């Protein structure tokens, strides 16, 4: 295979698409605003990439088993609220509350599998429950994030901005666990061919519980990292994360069904989404269009993917 053939190979194009979109967006930003090309500039632009990447990974776990989570944004809001109140006041109570949140997520996975329910309806309902609990815990924006979370999120690393290191660590850890372990392959198989996995003796119920709990765990991490940046919380702090997380997975090359996901891609997708905000600001485009631009990027990437797919045959 010549180099040209290798580059135009649909499979290569497909897997290169997330990184390419990120690189294109980043170079456009550097072109428009050269001052962004610095330690400080990158740090500022990618600050919120960590919580968004964590929420995206959470969504990816759910998409792996062919479900969709419309409640992750509200859930991140809830865990942020718990982090800024219960966890800050009394670490033991706070940790227990967060553990209960993860367990609740696992239970929802079990319920969805047990009754064969559509995940969209269940999670949409649950988003109201999470929001309701968050509003009760934290009726008005406020609270304070624990000092140790602030310390972690404010870490100054020489040469490479912290968000980039954190994103890389998240991507590599999840990539290894989900893509390079035998249990990870089973988990993905439950999305690709649930019947085969079941016949091979695995419990689909257990797999759903594991995946939903993992999503809950990353949702907790997302909420905590978010208050590390904002130092206060609000029940509505992460409402947009539901959309971000879905878009992030898709931008990162994840398929909607069939267990075809990519943790590294998902994190890159999250970074790309985070950058769109800065890009629009540099272009002096009204923030009104921020959410629209994210939709447009999503559509463009999906269009490119459809083109590549057509060539795949």
């Amino acid at each position, binding site marked *: 295979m010549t180099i040209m053939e290798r580059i135009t190979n649909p499979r290569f194009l497909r897997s290169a698409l997330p990184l390419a979109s990120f690189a294109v967006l980043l170079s456009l930003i550097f072109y428009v605003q050269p001052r962004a090309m610095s330690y400080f500039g990158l740090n500022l632009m990618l600050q919120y990439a960590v919580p968004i990447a964590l929420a995206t990974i959470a969504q990816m776990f759910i998409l792996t088993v062919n479900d969709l989570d419309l409640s992750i944004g509200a859930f991140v809001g809830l865990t942020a609220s718990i982090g800024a109140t219960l966890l800050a006041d009394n670490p033991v109570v706070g940790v227990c509350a967060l553990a209960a949140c993860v367990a609740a997520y696992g239970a929802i996975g079990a319920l969805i599998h047990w009754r064969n329910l559509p995940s969209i309806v269940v999670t949409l309902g649950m988003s109201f429950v999470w*929001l309701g609990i968050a509003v009760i815990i934290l009726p008005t924006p406020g609270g304070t994030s624990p000092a140790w979370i602030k310390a972690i999120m404010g870490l100054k690393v020489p040469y490479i901005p912290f968000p980039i290191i954190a994103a890389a660590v998240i991507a590599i850890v999840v990539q290894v666990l989900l893509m390079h372990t035998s249990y990870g392959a089973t988990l993905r198989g439950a999305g690709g061919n649930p019947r085969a996995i079941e016949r091979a003796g695995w419990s689909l119920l257990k797999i759903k519980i594991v995946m939903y709990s993992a999503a809950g765990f990353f949702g907790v991490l997302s909420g905590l990292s978010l208050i590390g940046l904002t130092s206060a919380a609000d029940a509505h702090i992460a409402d947009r994360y539901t959309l971000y997380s879905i878009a992030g997975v898709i931008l990162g090359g994840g398929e909607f069904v069939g267990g075809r996901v990519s943790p590294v891609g998902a994190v890159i997708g999250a970074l790309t989404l985070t950058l769109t905000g800065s890009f629009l600001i540099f272009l002096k485009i009204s923030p009104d269009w921020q959410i629209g631009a994210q939709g447009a990027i999503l559509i463009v990437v999906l269009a490119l993917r459809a083109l590549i797919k057509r060539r795949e045959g």
Partner: protein
Amino acid sequence: MTALARTLGRQRWIWAYLGMVAVWLATVTFTGGKGGGEIITAALSFAAFTVIVGIGQMFVITTGPGNVDLSIPATISLSGAVAMKLMGGDNAMLLVGIAASLGCGFAVGLFNYMLIRILRIPPIIATLSSSFLILSTAISYGRGLKIKPPSMLADFTTTQVFGFPVLAFFVILFAAIMALILNRTVYGRAVSAVGQNPRAAWLAGVDVERIRFRTYLQSAVLAAVCGFLLAGFSGGASLNMGEEYLLASIAVVVIGGTSVAGGQGNVAGIIGAAIFMFLLVTMLNTFGASAGVRLIMTGLIIVAVITIAGGDKPQR
């Protein structure tokens, strides 16, 4: 009598109406019989809007698993903002406003279907990403929008005859027509057929793609109509006025007895479910529940209803 009970028990939409009556009785018992009539009037007024979008969503969901229109809230906001701005509160511009509103609906429906068909994007992602674009358009177009609706529109949406909202009457009439379309026309039967088994429907000569196109178009247009009327009802368009209709449109379909796996729609249940949803919030308000508790209860009831109804195995 038992035969009647059994026949009714098999109709899943009956639960929505039972829930509606139970919640109303609980509320009226709590208030000692005061305000029972007013509550019904308010419920009919508000439920009318949910029914309009619910019917559009029901047809979409009935075309099979994976089909859901998530762009309804954004379309409501866009249609309301565009219509209000064009009419500028002038009765003479009413027709222009209606046309613009319908135009928004057509454009959104066309765009959604284009994404689904040409780019082969799964409907959920397609309608989600288009809703981003629609919402941004609405936000940037309608910034600082504080325009009162034309008096004729405001009157139409708020007039009552003996405590019965005129709008609710029209919506019930419309629902009856849509029920006929679903159960008695070639289009309606085709929607169910596609939802049950798209391949079998295709082999039987159903133009599956045309059915899908019409269904998504219909949903967007109904969302636009809802936005138009809602802006008239609430004294002007606001950008987040569509927000609550994402959950509401799906919830009334599920509670109303439509199969979420597709292939089996139900119009009558949507009306009961929409009134039930409104009465539920009213009841919690009367009981003095806080905003948080109201949210939790709303969410839990939807999860409970879908759990009891159970997901049907996809018929493939």
